[in-house]
């Protein structure tokens, strides 16, 4: 098969366009900061950014001015507090307004499922007597055709581009993930274009040794970017730990617009690539994030001929 391997620079340049709806998913796990930084570096504009939990990556992207709108279900720095750059734009239009479209987690997940399934809506048992449907007219009541059971519907979400970070992938984009799997599969199938970023590029035979582990098939993938440690300060199960210190430190950085700009200048604009970021962070920091070993018991698929 044809290799889809590309540099992050080329993948973003080719596949992420001004005005796009972009999902860089991952529920605390495998959040591809490297892709976010490259989008900032290439100064994309007017993006609609979608994530269940915008996390620090979207605080950085929103603060850097790439986004016109945010679609989300939980807006915070997990375990720490607020996303201050996002809050500045929402609360004070500082430096410019930010449009928001807000759901609950269940709603966001089901929007991706509907997008992936080409369903015009998805029914869920949530939102009863909540003010969320009032705040977001896309959340509408719906009746069951079998009786008076009332639910709410959410509309499909079909990103122009979804970025999925995987522990391992082959050159065609068949990608395997373990640990928290969030809604990456659904977000990928829902998207028009998919960028797979991986910790390790592996031979197709590794993928084929365990087909039940494949989350994203190469069939729907447009580019494969090999970017080890590309999730920092998020984590990659079995590869590096969550850098909680970074998340804690971000609170003060995000709170202060000058510190925010200085951080971006130093860690994004001032660097050529994520490889530079990895090097700049330093081996001591990486060593502290190195997990021990806990290997899965292998399974036999058998040969049949």
């Amino acid at each position, binding site marked *: *098969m044809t290799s889809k391997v590309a540099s992050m620079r080329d993948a973003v340049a080719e596949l992420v366009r001004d005005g796009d709806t972009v999902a860089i998913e991952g529920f605390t796990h495998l959040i591809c900061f490297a892709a976010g930084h490259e989008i900032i570096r290439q100064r994309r504009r007017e993006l609609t950014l979608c994530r269940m939990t915008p996390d620090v990556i979207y605080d950085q992207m929103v603060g850097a001015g790439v986004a016109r709108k945010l679609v989300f279900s939980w807006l915070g720095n997990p375990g720490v507090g607020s996303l201050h750059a996002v809050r500045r734009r929402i609360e004070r239009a500082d430096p410019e307004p930010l449009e928001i479209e807000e759901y609950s987690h269940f709603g966001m997940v089901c929007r991706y*499922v509907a997008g*992936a*399934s*080409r*369903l015009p809506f998805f029914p869920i048992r949530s939102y009863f007597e909540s003010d969320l449907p009032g705040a977001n007219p896309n959340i509408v009541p719906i009746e069951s055709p079998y009786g008076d059971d009332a639910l709410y519907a959410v509309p499909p979400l079909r990103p122009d581009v979804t970025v999925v970070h995987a522990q391992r992938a082959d050159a065609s984009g*068949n990608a395997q993930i373990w640990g928290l799997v969030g809604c990456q*599969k*659904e977000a990928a*199938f829902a998207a028009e274009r998919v960028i797979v970023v991986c910790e390790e590029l592996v031979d*197709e035979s590794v*993928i*084929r*040794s365990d*087909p*039940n582990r*494949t989350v994203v*098939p*190469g*069939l*729907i993938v447009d580019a494969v970017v090999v970017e080890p440690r590309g999730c920092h300060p998020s984590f990659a199960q079995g590869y590096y730990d969550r850098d909680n210190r970074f998340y804690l430190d971000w609170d003060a950085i995000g709170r202060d617009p000058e510190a925010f700009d200085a951080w971006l200048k130093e860690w994004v604009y001032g660097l050529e690539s994520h490889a530079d970021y990895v090097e700049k962070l330093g081996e001591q920091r990486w060593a502290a994030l190195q997990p021990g070993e806990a290997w899965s018991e292998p399974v036999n*698929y*058998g*040969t*049949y*001929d």
Partner: protein
Amino acid sequence: MDEMGDYTATEMMIVASARLLAGERVCFVGVGPPNIACNLAKRTVSPELELIYEAGVFGAVPARLPLSIGDPTLVTGSLQVTNMFELFSYFLAGGLVDVAFLGASQIDRFGNINTTVIGDYAKPKVRLPGSGGACEIAINAKKVFVIMPQSKRSFVEKIDFVTSPGHLGGDRPAHWPGSGPSDVVTGLGTYTFDPQTGEMTLATLHPGVTLDEVVANTGWEPKVADGLTETPAPTGEELRLVREELDPEGAYTR
């Protein structure tokens, strides 16, 4: 069984079906002759073809010919196994399938398909298997190839039950996700569908088959293409691949 020169009718059907896959990218496939046709196409006209098996397998590399739609040889060494919800929701309804093969017990001139009952639904003369995934495949695959044996009992004026919609009465709605059957391959010839009327049109006669035979085995007055030609006979290489690599035991082809 059904010898035609030095190849069987089924071999002709498989080879004709495989050739239809030229230029296609993603094919949704069950077992039996369509499986052989797809794997023949990958070795001939369509090396980049990607196969999705209805059992939930993408990128299978079967080491033998499966009897059933689900078989362990489809799984070992494949690229992805997926559950049935995701298979039908994300792969099929999601719009990834360019072409799917369907069989039929009855078909009408508009490509509507019955695999449910012969006779009345409540008191059937013959209870057939039913839809399986055929109904949603017929609606969601971008196009459909039908492979089936042809006789007056299978090519009928009015099918007993519409399991899987084809071109309806020639008025299949344009907003449906898929465009319906584009080709039918039988033991007698190949058919396309008139883009205006949605009517099945005899496009080629297999070598040695006459138009009279087709008429005698069709339950309506069949429409015939202006440029009716003969289906090119299987090549030696096509036959070798089918016989030596794809169905060495002749389970389907002899």
